[in-house]
């Protein structure tokens, strides 16, 4: 494929280093190659010893892999972060308002802004949530908003690629990557004013506590994990530990007297807020998948009675689906009366005949995604695909057009990265984590993922992506 010209985070095309990378580049040029190689080995060793690994899903032998960590940080200047932060707050506020609306009056449908069938035909819409009130009207307590930067050398602009409102993961890597950089290169933190991120678990706990059922003064918060063979188990354990709350599995909880309890060595203890890292379908075998051994029988009825809080709420998937994504800018205007600060990527909805015919005519230039897909599976990256791949995808698209959306292939920005041949640019994205409770809060930065294969635009760890520390420079 022809390499696309893309925005390089560190350098201009002229070779000049961008101002916010200046200090780092000077430092990097002074580091001997062997030192950096040694530091990379050290990082690997520590990650393995600490067990910062992710289990390969479905592999019960417990095979664990490291997510490759790259030593060169992704740096964001203060004014850019300010804009991102304002935009993220605005977007997440609107998404929460949308969720409340969908499960109550549905004003946005009545106003004709979003077609009703977009909601009712969505598998993530949960009719059992209709009319159910949740504390503070917050549905997505934790949102991971995937951002990319595209555009040319001068005006690289940020776009929201995807909203993750179900169980977004990756925040533990953001925290561990920072810890690692500080351990390997403490001098960099003396030279640069880098916004800290280590207080994320405190913000998270505060948000979760503030979302407790009304009248509960000192809520008991737990993290619910599917168990140690889940690919994100490390993160579940990490967050529970950092917040100082119990990490529970479904079998540790039970429902009695219209309340949720956990089994402790001193008898049953009432639970008020469940930060669940389990998909909706697995939460309650009585209500959803009855083959799920991961959930808690009877949980849904306690939840609907408002006697326990789930974070995120049940049914948030209706707002982060790729078929709803094109409407988010309209939501912002509808609920907040504001202009959207963050751009959406122009999106063709293949369910519309005119969009479909455009997409079919331009497949080699477009990225086509499954509406309900995640994790980089089931998508077509036109410019990186063979003719045969495109044709087989075309057949799937024609057979089920409502299952797909398409977007122009963005020239994702790139950041210098250690690769076998030395340092070379690789494409990156950014997932900031936005917390909603009493306030909307976030730590500066997020998780930067990097596609390690040359030219690749797929940053997912399941597809060979790595991660970087993300620095927001303070003013």
């Amino acid at each position, binding site marked *: 494929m022809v390499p696309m010209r893309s925005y390089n985070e560190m350098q201009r095309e002229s070779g000049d280093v961008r101002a916010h990378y200046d200090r780092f580049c000077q430092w990097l040029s002074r580091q001997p190659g062997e030192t950096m190689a040694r530091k990379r080995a050290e990082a690997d060793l520590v990650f393995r*010893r600490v*067990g910062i690994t992710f289990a390969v899903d479905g592999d019960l032998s*417990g095979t664990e892999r490291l997510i490759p960590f790259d030593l060169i940080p992704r740096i964001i200047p203060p004014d850019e972060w300010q804009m991102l932060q304002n935009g993220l707050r605005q977007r997440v506020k609107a998404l929460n308002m949308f969720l409340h609306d969908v499960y109550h009056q549905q004003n946005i449908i009545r106003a004709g802004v979003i077609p009703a069938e977009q909601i009712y035909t969505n598998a993530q819409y949960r009719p059992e949530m209709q009319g159910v009130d949740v504390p503070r009207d917050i549905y997505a307590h934790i949102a991971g908003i995937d951002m990319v930067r595209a555009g040319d050398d001068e005006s690289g602009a940020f776009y929201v690629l995807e909203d993750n409102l179900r169980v977004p993961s990756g925040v533990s890597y953001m925290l561990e990557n920072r810890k690692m950089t500080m351990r390997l290169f403490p001098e960099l933190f003396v030279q640069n004013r880098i916004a800290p991120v280590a207080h994320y678990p405190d913000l998270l706990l505060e948000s979760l506590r503030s979302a407790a059922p009304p009248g509960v003064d000192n809520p008991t918060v737990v993290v619910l994990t599917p168990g140690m063979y889940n690919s994100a188990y490390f993160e579940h354990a*990490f967050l529970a*530990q950092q917040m100082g709350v119990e990490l*529970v599995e479904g079998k*540790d909880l039970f429902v009695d007297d219209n309340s949720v309890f956990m089994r*402790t060595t001193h*008898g*049953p203890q009432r639970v008020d807020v469940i930060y669940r890292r389990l998909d909706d379908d697995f939460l309650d075998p009585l209500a959803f998948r009855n083959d799920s051994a991961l959930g808690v029988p009877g949980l849904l009825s306690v939840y609907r009675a408002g006697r326990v809080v789930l974070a995120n709420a049940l049914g948030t998937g209706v707002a982060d689906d790729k078929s709803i994504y094109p409407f988010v800018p309209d939501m912002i205007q509808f609920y907040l009366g504001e202009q959207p600060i963050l751009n959406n990527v122009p999106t063709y909805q293949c369910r519309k005949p005119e969009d479909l015919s455009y997409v079919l005519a331009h497949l080699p230039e477009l990225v086509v995604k499954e509406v309900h897909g995640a994790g980089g599976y089931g998508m077509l990256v036109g410019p990186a695909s063979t003719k045969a791949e495109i044709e087989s995808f075309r057949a799937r698209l024609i057979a089920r057009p409502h299952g797909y959306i398409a977007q122009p292939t963005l020239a994702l920005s790139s950041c210098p990265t250690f690769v076998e041949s030395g340092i070379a640019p690789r494409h990156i994205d950014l997932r900031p984590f936005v917390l909603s409770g009493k306030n909307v809060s976030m730590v500066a930065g997020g998780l930067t993922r990097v596609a390690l294969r040359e030219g690749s635009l797929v940053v997912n760890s399941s597809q060979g992506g790595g991660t970087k520390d993300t620095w927001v420079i303070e003013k």
Partner: protein
Amino acid sequence: MLSRTADHLFWMARYMERAENTARMLDVTMQARLLPQSHNQENRSLRAVLRISELEPAFLERGEPLTQESVLRFLVSDPRNPSSIYCFLQAARENARAVRGTLTTEAWETVNSTWLKFTQLLKDDLLAIDPGSLFEWVKYRSHLSRGVTTGTAYHDDAYFFTRLGTFLERADNTARILDVRFLDAEREPRDLSDSSAQLEDFYYWTSILSSVSALEIYRKVYRDVVTSDRVIDLLMLNRSMPRSLLAALDGVCDNLKKLRNDYSHDCEREAGKLRAELQYADIPQILEGGLHAYLTQFLARVYELGNRVSETFLLLPVA
């Protein structure tokens, strides 16, 4: 704390202790083989090692010849034998991983890196090249994991469950070692008027002491020749001897007391009875009824106590 968490901590500690005791036992057996021995004696000591863990049938089922190499492989590096050091360290690590958020970072890293490094040492073939140093290493890592836990963990229920697992397992393991070794000695009584038999006898008992780090302690306590009665006395009834049955029961009772809940009365009483019997026992009396009989009922009661701990703390009735 969460019952499941307590369960994992309890078993993490038990498996680590079991790995250590297996290494201790094998280390001593290996050292004994450095002395001149008849083929018959060799075979006997290998069988004794297998019997300690009740593994003789499982081993013989494999149809492999009874050699030092095959027994070592079976008890150290065989992933198919759930009672190998390999499986113990793996189980300790899996239990730790399930509750890694409850452990201190240092404690988790110790258990995790023990497992990772152990698999590496096996790959490097250390078991064939220098088994003694491998056993030393396992012992050392077990000491380290206990020390790191004691030195870093907040002393709350999580810590007490971990300690409870260690002591209960140790009571079991020391009793097993004593039982098998003494049965072994009874089966082949030595004629102590013969000086070579005397020498053999000396090495036999000193090796048992070494296997529980008690040889120096024996010398300090008795300042006298090594006799089987005193070995029993030291390893069963001396509460200052850290691997003795009484010391282990002290540890069990102390931790149970700290873990007391509304349901734990019976559990504490059983442990207390077992301890009191040791506390007021005397050796001639025990020997009169037969050591084997005594230890057999002791092991059964330790096993029963383990079940009771599970019922009391780990599988609480719903509401």
